[in-house]
């Protein structure tokens, strides 16, 4: 079960369209017979991550929950505090001006990474959850009325489900849930029927955190425009921004939320990108310093974008860290990131399918899925599986993945979920498969 990390030529750039079946296996010293799939090793990415570099037997397969951080990100945060730290936007002194500039630069960098040209429409938040709550509160409470309808899908993370459910309850609006196809995609036929003139919000994820499904965002937005002219399209991009080349302005959405910590950045920073006209007419989400223009005794006027939605001292250091993460990802190339993940997932799916009693969820074709693989093993609860794997240094997620509506529809209490990123390689899949075999032996299944 020891990892066998070797340097091997980098993988080809083009993403494989189907699960490779007959590629010649690389030399392996494992006692088990490996399925005939190519071995995939990252070039040197693993060594860029201190937590992984120092623990060679750690098999981190939970990047859909949070990613590990490369040294360049940690260094950028430290450098900010060591060289540039002051409260931005306030002090009339050079250090504060430097902090302000760092924050400005970070916003520019992240906006550029996500294909946002109108930079002030990128609001920094604590993450996706806060970004979605911002929309549900600031836009939702002023626009959703009794009798209106809010459409979400059955694959949503609680962060893109509960705020809308609660808004619907509060506004006496109706929450309508679009069901999924058997292979875990949004049922577009049903969505078409759900949309109408009463629809005020259509909220869906770009990539499902529990199934890995990549949703056709632009197509769905087009459908929303045609069938539901009064609705905003809100997209949870938490699982997409880290893994796909996302151009938000090209997607045509009204709001797009993302998290920094899932894309190699620090925890506590993420963002909301919104259509300027909508952001300008929305009331603020939180009140306080920085977001005001003028405070009278009886009334207050709001600052311009993005400050109107960033009350209080901003999280400059983590924004700087996130910008460094964008640099790092662009250094690899998002197309390479994607290609690497497609190959790893192909390898994982083939090898999971070869294990008796393993069931995987989500679309079968690789082009429709990200680096997330949800699975169950007959006779072994995911929680027990996770404990067995943990003993071999394999970190997976076991549970409902903050998607209880989805789990009910899959008719399972929980699944196991392995998710990959730039620092994973075939040895992580080896360890996963070996751990599953060990659990099966232990439980006698």
């Amino acid at each position: 079960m020891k990892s066998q990390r070797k340097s091997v030529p980098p993988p080809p750039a083009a993403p494989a369209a189907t699960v490779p079946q007959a590629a010649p296996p690389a030399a392996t010293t494992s006692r088990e017979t490996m399925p005939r799939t190519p071995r995939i090793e990252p070039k040197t990415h693993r060594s860029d991550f201190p937590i992984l570099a120092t623990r060679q037997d750690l098999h981190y397969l939970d990047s859909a929950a949070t990613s590990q951080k490369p040294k360049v990100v940690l260094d950028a945060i430290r450098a900010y505090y060591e060289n540039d730290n002051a409260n931005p936007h306030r002090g009339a002194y050079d250090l504060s001006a430097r902090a302000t500039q760092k924050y400005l630069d970070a916003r520019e960098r992240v906006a550029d990474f996500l294909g946002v040209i109108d930079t002030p429409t990128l609001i920094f938040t604590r993450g996706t959850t806060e970004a979605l709550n911002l929309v549900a509160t600031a836009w939702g409470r002023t626009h959703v009325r009794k009798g209106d309808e809010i459409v979400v899908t059955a694959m949503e993370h609680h962060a893109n489900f509960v705020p809308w459910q609660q808004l619907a309850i509060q506004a006496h609006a109706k929450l309508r849930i679009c069901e999924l196809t058997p292979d875990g995609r949004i049922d577009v036929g049903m969505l078409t029927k759900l949309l109408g003139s009463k629809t005020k919000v259509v909220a869906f994820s770009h990539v499902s955190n529990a199934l890995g499904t990549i949703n056709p965002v632009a197509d769905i937005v087009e459908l929303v425009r045609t069938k539901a002219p009064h609705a905003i399209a809100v997209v949870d991009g938490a699982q997409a921004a880290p893994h796909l080349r996302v151009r938000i302005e090209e997607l045509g959405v009204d709001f797009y939320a993302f998290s920094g910590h899932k894309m190699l950045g620090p925890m506590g920073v993420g963002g909301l990108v919104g259509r300027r006209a909508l952001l300008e007419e929305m009331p603020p989400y939180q009140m306080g310093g920085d977001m005001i223009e003028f405070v009278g005794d009886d009334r207050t006027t709001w600052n311009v974008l993005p400050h109107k939605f960033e009350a209080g001292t901003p999280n400059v250091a983590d924004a700087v860290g996130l910008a460094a993460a964008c640099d790092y990802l662009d250094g690899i190339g998002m197309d390479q990131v994607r290609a690497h993940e497609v190959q790893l997932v192909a390898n994982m799916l083939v090898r999971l399918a070869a294990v008796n009693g393993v069931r995987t969820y989500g679309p079968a074709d690789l082009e429709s899925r990200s680096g997330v693989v949800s699975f169950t093993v007959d006779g072994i609860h995911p929680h027990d599986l996770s404990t067995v794997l943990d003993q071999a240094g394999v970190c997976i997620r076991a549970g409902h993945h903050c998607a209880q509506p989805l789990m009910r529809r899959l008719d399972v209490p929980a699944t196991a979920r392995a998710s990959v990123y730039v620092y994973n390689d075939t040895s992580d899949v080896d360890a996963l498969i070996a751990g599953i075999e060990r659990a099966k032996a232990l439980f006698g299944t």
Partner: protein
Amino acid sequence: MVILSAAKNDKHPVRMTTNLEALYQEVILDHNRKPRNFREMENADRHINGRNPLCGDEVTVYVKLDGDRVADVSFKGQGCAVSKSSASLMTAAVKGKSVEETMRLFARFHDMITGKLSDVEREQMGSLAALGGVSRFPLRVKCASLAWHALKSALQQGPAEVSTDLEGPPLTEGA
């Protein structure tokens, strides 16, 4: 410990084998496969739903009292091997006991799974000792105590729904 010496010839690292075998003892696996008293109880005096928000597991514990004694106890639900076997072993252990004895046993059991008992004390726990390995897995304390929390609520006229969040953050428990 016997388990340690048994692990010597295993091809897997000792740490893994000892901890895993301590957790998933044959008794646990047996009760997981064939849980005892695994049924609904129509004439129960109380039934309590217990939930583990961490993993979404649910168990319903049914209790029939005869005066101060637990005349019958059963459970239904879905969960991991630890929560299922713990519920199963619990039902076998408390049947016929007084409410007070049952509560004392839970306190003792909780001490065991959070690593507060000596080896000798653990061996005095009878069949429940099989769950002693949980003390090495602080994240699994909630699984092992789920049914017990439900039973406690049933016997003490507590709420009809309980959650293992009562246990607090997992890492503050035990070793």
